[in-house]
């Protein structure tokens, strides 16, 4: 039985956490733990893929006698679980491979090794759970394990604060999910997913559960305005864990959302799609705008995760809207696009975080203003990072393009919807998506250009060396996955098909049988895309260009002074900087999105001081939403503080009044 095999692997991962505690910082401990993780994740991946491709009938749940007495914990693998197991374990295997090399640079392996396998086990358990209780326990276990990894380097500035905010938001999210499941289980309290699925839910209750699930899973996935912890916590962890948190853990949150809204809640109402879509487009645009402004490479990647989560939620919102109106084919297309993007983002975001980790170990810098010129010192990492940037910027023939293209195809089908509210807003969401995609390209041109091109801006960047081969192997694996998914999207779409069919009742037409491996989402007359063709065109045209240049260009060697771009001083400070690259976009969006204020300080004539340009930016969401909440809590605490200093008689009166109030309630209650 597949679920038994996977659970055995998960138990082995948990045992490995114990090994990590014992082995601590002995030499070879990290090699042992990471290679064992690699092997175990490989096994789970194989099981999940075989389950996904073979697609046998529904499998009964496996009930283990752990957890609540007489209830136990139910685990089951269906198509949705198998897909997310594959996503999780592919990312985890790549991260383990990368960590085989990267982990050697870790200063305190004893703080990472015990929690890393536990974190992997937690994520696997979340998607395996088949009742609300084990789901919530696994969810919280995953949060706590990742929290321990976030504060692994707790002596670095801000990491403890990041951990604290993460813990707060994670608890808040779990609370919302707890309420959602409580409402779903109803007064009878049947927490098994099978019972919840079979029960009828009132419309208002289902709507309330949707909102709770959106907030609960959104706080883990990083939906604006619940994203505040994400750009703090993800960069704080060691890089392979950052990759897992950004690339994989946010996907577990997406799994939670899909499981609750598509699987458990039954037929959606039309406004659900609107809510999810609105939040998703806001998240996509704001996330990428924030990413464009960051100077910290890992924080930039974390904000870009926020953007991609927004894109995924746009797809899910579209699927909900189509499903509510009974348009199964477009719903299948939108859900396929969202799940495809889940897969893609787990590939390229892990790849990019690995690249950032390689840069970090090599130079000790995360501030891109202090990097530059790394392409000459770390050519392979630069190539791999460039591949990730191309994929995340949705350029063909890589995988990011396919999922976003599918998403646009689904958006173009929105006029079929009967509700005018949706007809008018979905094109707006499409425009937001297009804006996010364009800004994301700009963001990664900036990230790659400032980090790897130009001249080194610091001694550390000058002294950078290529990272170790095992780390590069992990990155090569992911880049290959990006390329394969981009060139052969039909295979991926067909693998997702059983998942989609289980959720919306229909799947996309099979793609692998199409001629020349092209994909046709709706009809051939409408649109089709052939990744292989684009890839071959790019390869051939490049080879042709190289050949033509080499054959017809002059072979004579010429020496000339390079153009100095108008800067006679050779200092690297005169280069284009990250801030100057982002400045036009800051001018356009900054005043509103970041409350950015620029101030020019001109010294009076005769003064020898340099002129200064000061830019102040604020986090809008933090100021508008979180600062007031913080203020209210502070105010409430201050008011309640008076209760500490009452007289005995007043305390007695409080007890007395409480008693009388309770008695009154008993008397009045019907």
């Amino acid at each position, binding site marked *: 039985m597949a679920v038994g095999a996977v659970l055995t692997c998960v138990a082995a991962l948990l045992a490995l956490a114990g090994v990590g505690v014992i082995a601590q910082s002995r030499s070879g401990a990290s090699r042992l733990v990471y290679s064992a993780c690699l092997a175990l994740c490989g096994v789970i991946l194989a099981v999940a893929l075989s389950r996904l491709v073979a697609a046998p009938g529904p499998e009964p749940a496996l009930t283990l006698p752990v957890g609540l007495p007489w209830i136990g914990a139910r685990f089951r693998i269906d198509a949705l679980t198998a897909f997310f197991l594959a996503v999780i374990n592919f990312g985890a295997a790549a991260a383990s491979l990368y960590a085989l090399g990267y982990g050697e640079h870790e200063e305190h392996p004893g703080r990472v090794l015990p929690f890393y396998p536990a974190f992997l086990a937690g994520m696997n358990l979340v998607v395996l759970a088949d009742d609300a209780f084990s789901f919530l326990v696994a969810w919280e276990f995953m949060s706590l394990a990742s929290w321990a990894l976030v504060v692994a380097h707790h002596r670095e500035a801000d990491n403890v604060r990041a951990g604290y905010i993460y813990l707060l938001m994670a608890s808040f999210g779990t609370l919302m999910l707890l309420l959602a499941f409580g409402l779903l289980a109803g007064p009878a309290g049947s927490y098994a997913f099978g019972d919840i699925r079979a029960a009828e839910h009132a419309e208002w209750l289902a709507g309330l559960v949707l909102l709770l699930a959106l907030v609960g899973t959104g706080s883990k996935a990083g939906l604006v305005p619940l994203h505040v912890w994400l750009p703090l916590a993800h960069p704080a962890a060691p890089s392979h864990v950052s990759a897992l948190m950004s690339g994989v853990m946010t996907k577990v949150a997406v799994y939670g959302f899909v499981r609750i809204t598509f699987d458990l809640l039954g037929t959606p109402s039309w406004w659900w799609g609107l809510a999810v879509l609105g939040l998703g487009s806001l998240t996509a645009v704001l996330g990428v705008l924030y990413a464009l402004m960051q100077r910290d490479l890992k924080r930039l990647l974390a904000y870009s995760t926020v953007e991609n989560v927004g894109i995924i939620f746009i797809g899910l919102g579209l699927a909900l809207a189509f499903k509510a109106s009974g348009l199964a084919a477009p719903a299948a297309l939108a859900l396929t696009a969202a799940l495809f993007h889940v897969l893609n983002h787990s590939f390229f975001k892990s790849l990019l975080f690995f690249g950032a980790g390689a840069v970090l170990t090599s130079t000790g810098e995360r501030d891109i203003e202090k990097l530059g010129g790394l392409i000459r010192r770390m050519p392979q990492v630069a190539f791999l990072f460039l591949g990730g940037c191309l994929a995340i910027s949705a350029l063909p023939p890589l995988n990011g393009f396919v999922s976003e293209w599918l998403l646009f195809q689904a958006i173009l089908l929105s006029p079929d919807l009967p509700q005018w509210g949706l007809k008018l807003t979905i094109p707006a969401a499409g425009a937001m998506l297009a804006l996010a995609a364009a800004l994301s390209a700009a963001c990664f041109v900036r990230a790659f250009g400032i980090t790897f091109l130009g001249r080194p801006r610091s001694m550390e960047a000058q002294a950078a060396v290529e990272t170790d081969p095992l780390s590069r192997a992990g990155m090569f694996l992911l880049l290959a996955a990006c390329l394969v998914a981009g060139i052969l999207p039909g295979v991926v779409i067909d693998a997702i098909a059983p998942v989609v069919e289980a959720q919306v009742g229909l799947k996309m037409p099979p793609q692998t049988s199409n001629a020349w491996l092209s994909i046709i989402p709706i009809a051939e007359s409408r649109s089709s895309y052939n990744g292989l063709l684009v890839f071959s065109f790019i390869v051939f045209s490049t080879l042709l260009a190289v050949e033509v240049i080499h054959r017809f260009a002059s072979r004579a060697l010429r020496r000339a002074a390079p153009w100095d771009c108008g800067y006679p001083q050779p200092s690297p400070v005169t280069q284009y900087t990250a801030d100057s690259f982002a400045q036009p976009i800051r001018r356009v969006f900054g005043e509103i999105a970041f409350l950015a204020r620029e101030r020019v300080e001109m010294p009076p004539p005769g003064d020898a001081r340099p002129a200064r340009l000061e830019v102040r930016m604020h986090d809008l969401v933090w100021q508008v939403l979180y600062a007031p909440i913080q203020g209210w809590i502070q105010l409430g605490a201050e008011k309640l503080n*008076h209760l500490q*200093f*009452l*007289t*005995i*008689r007043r305390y*007695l*009166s409080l*007890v*007395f009044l409480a*008693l*009388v109030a309770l*008695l*009154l309630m*008993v*008397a009045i209650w019907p």
Partner: protein
Amino acid sequence: MQPLALDVAHMLAGGLVLVSFMLLYQDRMFGLLNIFALHAVVLSLSIAWQAYVQNAPHLFIPGAIALILKGIIIPVALHRVVVKLGIHREIETVGGIGPTMLAGIGLVALSMVVMLRATAAADPLARQDLAFALSVILLGLLMMVTRRNAVSQVVGFLSIENGLILAATGAKGMPLVVEISVAFSVIVAFIVIGVFLFRIRERFDTVDLQALDEFRGERQ
């Protein structure tokens, strides 16, 4: 026999509530102590009647304890404490006698409504008893809340104890050990509170709790 038993039990328990109201009304220290002794006497009568009606002679023991301890020893002791401390002035109340009495009436009505609804299936004898007992407890609490003087708070506390004993003896089949231990817990409480009264007085030259609060420098 049965209607008479119910009526007399009813009358005695109701009498206890009435005496509780008299406690609330009192504004002299010695008067308060005398009424409290009356409270204990009515209680012991009620217990004795319950012992007779329920045909449970062991109930006479808590009745006797109530009569001797609360009817005689504690009032006399409190009397001496008051004389010794020299605080036989008027009792300072919070918020006037009239509103307090009105609030007390409201509390009795509340406890009737709650108890009669909650115990609809119970034995009628126990039902009435429980309702009156809850009234006595609430009135005792009200007294503790509305008095500033430590001695009258002690009296309020002891009248709460009386209410508890009334409830315990009204229910049929309650083990004797519960009733006895409730009765004896009172004496312990009395000793502790008595010691504290003298300690407070030693320290602050008054047993008016307001002075304590002022000493702690806190708001009212």
